[in-house]
């Protein structure tokens, strides 16, 4: 904590040593888990099939709606001359491990500086936001998960766009607070998406789903479960200026 950069290389080296072992073993656990959930799926295939058909119909309807909204959005943006950010992918890696005994929540990603990853870059999966990079080695890097206490994500409610702050609670859940004091705007089942404020995380990435209300706040579950996702995508910071301004000391584990 005195000089966080001092040990950066050594920490990165240690990551490089452990990650290949972890990565190889991860395949085995993933397969085992897959066999068990697969067997479970066969068990009530008929009921699931009916459910899925129903969902599919509903989704199709929603897709048509979304399509029209998308077109309208494009037209509106064109009229506003809004600068559209191009989403680049820096690297794709697998989540191979995590911190075991610690109030901090870290995960290990099987991609490092040789893939172009630098400290501070946001990590996401197809399901939602995973976190951001805090340690980087040549072959592996350490991710500060959304559920870590030190990870604060400016976000908003998908339903009505109310700005909220999402902060990890260290136990796999996220605490969401509205910026305005007063009435609790959350409902169980609400989706929280990142707002892009602050410039680190890209906007409109799903972050969490509200499961419980608590006073003025709400408890939410991250949508990207690090234990279940297989691939994570590292993106450049939404606004590169934010990286330069970001104090490195604040994120040191």
């Amino acid at each position: 904590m005195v000089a966080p950069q001092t040990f950066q290389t050594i920490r990165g080296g240690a990551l490089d040593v452990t990650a290949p072992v972890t990565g190889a073993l991860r395949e085995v656990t993933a397969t085992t888990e897959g066999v068990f959930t697969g067997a479970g799926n066969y068990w009530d295939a008929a009921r699931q099939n009916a459910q899925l058909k129903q969902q599919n119909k509903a989704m199709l309807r929603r897709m048509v709606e979304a399509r029209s909204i998308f077109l309208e959005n494009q037209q509106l943006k064109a009229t506003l001359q809004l600068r559209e950010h191009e989403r680049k992918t820096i690297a794709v890696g697998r989540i191979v491990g995590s911190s075991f005994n610690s109030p901090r929540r870290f995960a290990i990603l099987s991609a490092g500086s040789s893939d172009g990853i630098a400290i501070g870059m946001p990590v996401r999966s197809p399901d939602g936001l995973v976190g951001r990079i805090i340690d980087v080695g040549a072959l592996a890097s350490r991710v500060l998960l959304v559920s870590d206490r030190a990870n604060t994500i400016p976000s908003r409610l998908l339903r009505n766009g109310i700005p909220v702050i999402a902060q990890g609670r260290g136990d796999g859940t996220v605490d969401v607070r509205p910026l305005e004091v007063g009435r609790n705007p959350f409902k169980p089942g609400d989706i929280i998406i990142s707002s892009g404020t602050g410039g680190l995380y890209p906007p409109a990435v799903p972050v969490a789903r509200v499961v419980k209300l608590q006073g003025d706040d709400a408890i939410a579950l991250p949508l990207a479960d690090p234990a279940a996702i297989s691939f994570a995508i590292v993106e450049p910071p939404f606004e590169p200026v934010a990286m330069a301004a970001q104090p490195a000391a604040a994120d040191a584990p």
Partner: protein
Amino acid sequence: MVRSALNPPRRIGQGPSPLAVYVPAVTVVIASFLAALPIVSTIGWYPDFGYLMFIGWRLLRADPWPAWWAAPLGFVNDLFTGYPIGFSIALWSATMLVLDLIDRRTMWRDYWIEWVVAAVLIAIDEWLQWRIAETVAGGLPFTAMVPPLVISICVFPAFAWLIWRIDAWRLGR
């Protein structure tokens, strides 16, 4: 090494294994390396394997390794587990000193006393981790640390048994 281990072996080919001096330290490093297991945990209730192994060895023997080895072993643990560098170095060195003091003061030891001592040390470990996380990441309720603490304390006897087996093997008994 205990005196009886240095007696001539009872059977030919039986005796301390040639690397008996290094076995304890190596097992501690392996325990630290368990943090590289490919399990992605969203809660983090796993015990601090390296520390359990470390105090287990130290409680079984007064001299599993020279006292100063605590620092390099702690460094390895810090690197593998992702704790702030220096955390395990300081804690493990302090543990060696505290256990030396306890050894000097206690008249006798049994299973329960060792478990209580281990429980107190594990509690100190968890408390320090919580304190550091609180300093770096902001207010975290200590209640969140109770489940991992209880799990670690309950797992300790299993580690103690494992260490006893390894110790018997390395001394060739």
